[in-house]
């Protein structure tokens, strides 16, 4: 059944009818499967991948490495929760290696991101240190290449 997830992950706009045709299942089966995925939080949401650089909206993305002190009985989860609840935080991952959390922040300006780090993130009691890296250009995100648009340039040949 993961076939449906793979299809939706690639293009969330396919209708249940279209997915039914692609997978050779009935529309009911597909609807039911998707409903179940949603209920079980396997499908967590539907979003659109936007290349903001091409719009007039100013936007800046930063990746922040955070070292934290885990809390007794809660491990990293409690600290992570405090952090990911900020609306500026677009992604939050627990990492192996030299630091603990990777946070991806989106803000309108450099200043906005900087003030998030200095006012909200760094002062948290369990945060030991942060290292902020600003994204200069997004080439590819969520498996999708941003700049290159597919063009069918196959030449005509007799076969």
């Amino acid at each position, binding site marked *: 059944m993961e*076939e449906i997830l*793979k*299809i939706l992950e690639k*293009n969330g706009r396919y209708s249940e009818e*279209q997915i039914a*045709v*692609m*997978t*050779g299942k009935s529309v009911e089966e597909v609807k039911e499967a998707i409903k179940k995925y949603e209920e079980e939080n396997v499908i967590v949401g539907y979003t659109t991948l936007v290349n903001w650089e091409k719009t007039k909206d100013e936007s800046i993305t930063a990746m922040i490495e955070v070292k934290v002190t885990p809390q007794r009985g809660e491990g990293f989860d409690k600290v992570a929760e405090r952090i990911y609840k900020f609306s500026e935080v677009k992604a939050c991952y627990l990492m192996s290696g030299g630091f603990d959390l990777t946070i991806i922040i989106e803000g309108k300006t450099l200043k906005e991101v900087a003030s998030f780090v200095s006012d909200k993130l760094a002062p948290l009691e369990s945060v030991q240190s942060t290292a902020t890296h600003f994204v200069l250009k997004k080439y590819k995100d969520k498996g999708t290449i941003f700049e290159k648009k*597919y063009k*069918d340039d*196959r*030449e*005509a*040949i*007799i*076969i």
Partner: protein
Amino acid sequence: MNVEDIILKKVKDIPPSGIRKYFDMINEMKDVISLGVGEPDFTTPWNVSESGIYSLEKGHTHYSSNAGLIQLREEIANYQQRKYNLQYNPKDQILVTVGGSEGIDIALRALVEAGDEVIIPEPSFVAYQGCTRITGATPVSIKLRAEDQFKLTPDLLEKAITPKTKVVIIPYPNNPTGAIMNRDDLSRIVEILKDKDLIVLSDEIYAELTYQDNHVSIASFPEMKDKTLVINGFSKAFAMTGWRLGYACGHPALIQAMTKIHQYAIMCAPTTAQYAAMEALKNGDSSVREMVKEYNHRRRVLVDGFRELGLDCFEPLGAFYTFPCIKSTGLTSEEFCEKLLMEQRVLVVPGNAFGECGEGFVRACYASSMEQLIEAINRIKKFIQR
């Protein structure tokens, strides 16, 4: 001197391809969705391309041996064993060619001449006719039937065989119909072929692209092994059309004869492509699986689309073609294709380009993006319901 007069009649007599004129037309048009070209829209998996690039960086820019790099031939032997349970000795039973088409050409040149007959089940790939005619031999068409799902049936085969028959072409999974032959289908024709003195040329270039059961090679029937020449290659399976690399596997005597022609006409297949192909055979399985999965989705969308429009379309279980019947529109195949192209800017290929019995059908290839296929179906709908 008139150059025309010097050119051989048998070459002049080969009719121009029925596809050519549409290609000339689309060159003048904008925003055409082409379901006309029979090649993957995927680019070659990066690990494969990268191996080609690395071989250039290492300076592997020379000829290989005539038959192809021995390491590649060993990988081909492993692959044929692993996938189709066929054993070939890489030293004298495998020849690396410039695409599967070279294999077809030099096999026919090694086997037939004027007076001989080559049996060609049709509709099928246009090169069988062309290559046969160039040798001077006579192509004998078998008209496959839609009601048999375009499979080769024993009755049709039996009727076509004469004492002059030297080669029988078995083109499955099939271009243009998408038909396949499973083990049972093959065993019925093996009964007829096993005692005949002829060579079976089994064109298995689409073997990786099947959507129900895995491909079965006719060479895997022990009684057929020595008399079958398997043609295969990298173009369709690994999306490597532009690298031009294929291979032939068969009896040492036939491979040796073909190698003679190959060494004078070609010397050896492109070395860079051979290095890339080794990577494809060693580490390409997962890429192939992904592509097949994607083709399968598209296949269902196109078949379903045609059926929704009221066109009969049998379920193609191989290659990447659908072959819907367009007789209900009252148009001939060529009229359908020409009008569809002019009115809705979708290119499909008339079925009769692949043999007369393809009249009443068109070939639509689903090696295009899902978005393009969905848009193509929308346009064809407008065309049919106009």
